[in-house]
């Protein structure tokens, strides 16, 4: 352990860099929170909002596999409603504001879902 000093210094610098977002937020008081803007006709999404917020990615994955691989296009929601499983057809008809809705959080979290490499996003005015 001759190099203990060096190793510990290195580790400290590494951890400091790694945790930069955490201590920066702590210094500033609070982290900036994304606010997805919901402009919608319906009162509620296919499932409750909290559920959608947390699990929309799993739901979309299930939709994707059910439509493409199991040849079924209708989704039976928990409350008995049925909807057509379609990202650009169903989701985006209520949420046509991809930039303010999808991207607001995705950009904040630096996640880059590949949906829009193929699916066509609704035309936005801006």
């Amino acid at each position, binding site marked *: 352990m001759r190099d203990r000093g060096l190793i510990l210094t290195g580790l400290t610098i590494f951890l400091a860099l790694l945790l930069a977002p955490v201590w920066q937020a702590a210094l500033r008081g609070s982290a900036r929170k994304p606010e997805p803007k919901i402009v919608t006709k319906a009162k509620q999404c296919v499932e409750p909002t909290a559920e959608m917020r947390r699990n929309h990615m799993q739901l979309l994955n299930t939709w994707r596999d059910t439509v493409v*691989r*199991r*040849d079924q296009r209708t989704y039976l929601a928990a409350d008995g409603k049925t909807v057509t499983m379609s990202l650009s057809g169903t989701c985006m008809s209520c949420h046509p504001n991809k930039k303010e809705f999808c991207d607001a959080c995705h950009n904040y979290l630096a996640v880059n879902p*590949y949906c829009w490499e*193929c699916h066509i996003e609704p035309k936005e005015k801006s």
Partner: protein
Amino acid sequence: MGEDRRRFLKLAGLTALCAAGKGSLARLAGAETTAAGGAAKQVRWAMVVDPRKCLEKEGCTACIDACNHAHNVPSFDNPKHEVKWIWKEPFADAFPDQDARYVDPALTAKPALVFCNHCDNPPCVRVCPTQATWKRGDGVVMMDWHRCIGCRYCMAACPYGSRSFNWEDPRPHIKDLNPDFPTRTKGVVEKCTFCDERLDKGQPPACVAACPEKAMIFGDLNDPDSEVRRLLRSRFALRRRASLGTQPEVFYLV
């Protein structure tokens, strides 16, 4: 007697092993492929092409245009990067095993309309390492563009050249974007899917609907009264490279 018992035990052991192996293999392989909902419908989609009716108007590309627009098929200037779902191929290249030198040139001088044959025994499905392509219960050979890893093994295995690869991002090369159908991303394989999205709505494939001469007839092979079965009963039909045992389900009337 002892010898017989030993043989019996060996055989029984071997049988049990095979059964167990088959079970686990089936679980490995079939979990998703057999889940298709087509089993209840008992439909077997197929296409009959009548080349005598096709192209009666010279240079007609109605079916190709309809397909390209419906599915956002890009058009590349570089022929190496071409993406094709349905296209015209010289008769001799589409049917390399048909030596038709003395046949009425009215038939063989015309290019043939070619697209995915939706084989009953599809080699592309056999080789795909991720089940990104598979045969549905209704016979449609489907593609899952979310799962394809772009290894292009299916393209090597397809005897019809029906598959295309996205050598680059196709988006900028689509002239007239159809918002109701996704494009593809670079690095995946694509092909004709018999318009699965239209079949689910009870509509025939876009090419069939677009043909002004009704030269393409789509229907259910399992229904003996369907038009495709009626045509195949009354007229002789070719299938592309039928000797390979792929059981193509696209028929060309003679």
